[in-house]
């Protein structure tokens, strides 16, 4: 996968002093609680994802960031608290439920079927059927149309793969991640969640995927990204949600806070009061 070398064409947000109108909130959670036996993974966690942004979620091990993400993607049901999508309260019972609401998740362990083609993977579980009652009855898939749409979806993200009918196992790790990202971007209507999208990749491929994530954001979909990789988080995030001890410790602006201060908040070495209020977002 060779990405277009054109740099992220995002307009530089230099209009800082003018207090912009409050951006629209796409996905919001209030007071989420989740207990596993005696362990409290989420202890009244809040969450807010705004329109058109990349929000990174970071936190130490056990801070509850993956539990938070699982609650937002429907993989677990929280014990208490509310989730709002576009201002309306939602209750996700399963990942499929969340997906029906337009929230797509890219999983860390690359949820692709390696022996199947790229086009088949893009439409796995959501195949396009041929028209007509008979075709619907036997669920006859429209391979040609799936191939055409796969080409469009991959071109939208400028992922240059020659043939959509090649097996996913013939691709590199970064290209496979590209397929998973393209699948989410193609089907998501509201939010794309990415769990450690660059963790399994080398430096070059990791950068390609970061570029892809920007393209998804620029196409109008807000992105939540969970990552341990601080340089990646600082490179790509518009805001950073710091999760600590089952709660949201702070939301900071990566343009104004240093990496070491961020880590300090994450580990509890610094409290919110010790930070310059300027760095909050």
């Amino acid at each position: 996968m060779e990405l277009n070398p054109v740099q992220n064409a995002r307009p530089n947000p230099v209009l800082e002093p003018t207090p912009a109108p409050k951006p629209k909130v796409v996905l919001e959670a209030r007071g989420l609680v989740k207990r596993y036996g005696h362990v409290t993974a989420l202890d009244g966690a809040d969450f807010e994802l705004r329109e058109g942004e990349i929000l990174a979620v970071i936190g130490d091990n056990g801070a509850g960031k993956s539990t938070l993400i699982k609650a937002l993607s429907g993989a677990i049901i929280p014990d208490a608290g509310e989730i709002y999508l576009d201002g309306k309260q939602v209750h996700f019972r399963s990942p499929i439920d969340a997906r029906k609401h337009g929230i797509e998740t890219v999983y860390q362990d690359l949820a692709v079927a390696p022996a199947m083609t790229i086009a088949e993977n893009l439409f796995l579980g959501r195949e396009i059927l041929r028209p007509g009652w008979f075709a619907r009855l036997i669920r006859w898939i429209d391979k040609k149309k799936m191939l055409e749409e796969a080409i469009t979806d991959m071109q939208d993200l400028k992922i240059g793969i020659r043939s959509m009918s090649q097996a996913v196992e013939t691709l590199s790790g970064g290209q496979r991640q590209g397929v998973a990202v393209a699948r989410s971007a193609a089907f998501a209507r509201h939010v794309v969640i990415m769990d450690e999208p660059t963790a399994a990749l080398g430096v070059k491929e990791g950068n390609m995927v970061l570029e892809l994530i920007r393209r998804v954001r620029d196409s109008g979909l807000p992105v939540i990204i969970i990552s341990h990789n601080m340089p990646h988080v600082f490179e790509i995030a518009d805001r950073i949600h710091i999760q600590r001890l089952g709660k949201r410790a702070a939301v900071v602006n990566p343009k104004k806070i240093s990496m070491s201060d961020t880590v300090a908040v994450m580990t509890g070495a610094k409290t919110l009061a010790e930070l310059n209020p300027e760095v909050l977002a």
Partner: protein
Amino acid sequence: MAEQPSGVTQSPRSLLERLPSLTILGPLVALLLAVIFFSLQSERFLTGQNFSLILQQVSVVAVLAIGQTLIILTAGIDLSVGFVMALGTMVMAKFAVELGMPPLLAILCGMAVTTAFGFLNGFLITRFKLPPFIVTLGTMNIAFALTQIYSRAQTVSNLPDAHLLWGNTFRIGETVFTYGVVLVIVLYLLVWFFLSETAPGRHLYAVGNNPEAARLMGIPTQRVLLLTYTIAGFFYGIAGWLLISRTSVADPNAGQTENLETITAVVLGGTSLFGGRGMVLGTLLGAIIVGVFRNGLTLMGVSSVYQVLITGILVILAVVADQISKRRG
């Protein structure tokens, strides 16, 4: 395609990309080589009548192997194949001959029994998360014992015409074919269409290839597995009907060698034992390869023990090829 992304490397299509077509090519080449070899060894080999005979001889194993293919594609295995079929034939025969049931209804009852066994296999595997190997080893013994108890180890003969339907013949030129052979080919084409052209067929591959990915994409993986084993059981019923059509009796000791023969056909046909890769038409080729070897060696006067030996070697070679291609992938 006007806006080609810049810097796309136009790498030539690698060998790996073309692997799916290679998997069907392998068995085809093996079959051709075997046919050429035996044609040179015996002049009775390459005749229409002998070819028709080979197809008749492999028809039962070929239909059983459809079920086995579906199951192996999901990364499972079925050891109960032959014995479940034998139980089905016994029900078909005894319900008609001893209970006086209308022949077609008796056949349907036999197919219902094999389908129920398939369902039982699938239920135990999905509900209790048991390994298919152990479950089907158990049901294999249950089916065998039930067949012996129900038949009191007696062969049932004097079967009505409906039971012998697929043994009827027709002519193309000088060569006589059975309807059973036509049925086998029609079944293979139907299953090939199902697997490659319908959404449930593709889901079956996905479940075998990466069950976790299939689940995350909203495919009901447990239901796919349950249905696969159940449909396989249905094919064992059809195979049972073919068997009694060929032999004109229901034999309580039938189905003893079919388990391994179906697995041999599937593996020789290029389907991976690791699941998710393979083609059902390859299995038909695999079954014919075994049939050609048996037939050709018989014509050469080689004793049947050596035929078993060669089948064993063939299956090991096919599994080795499967393992090597998996490592490359």
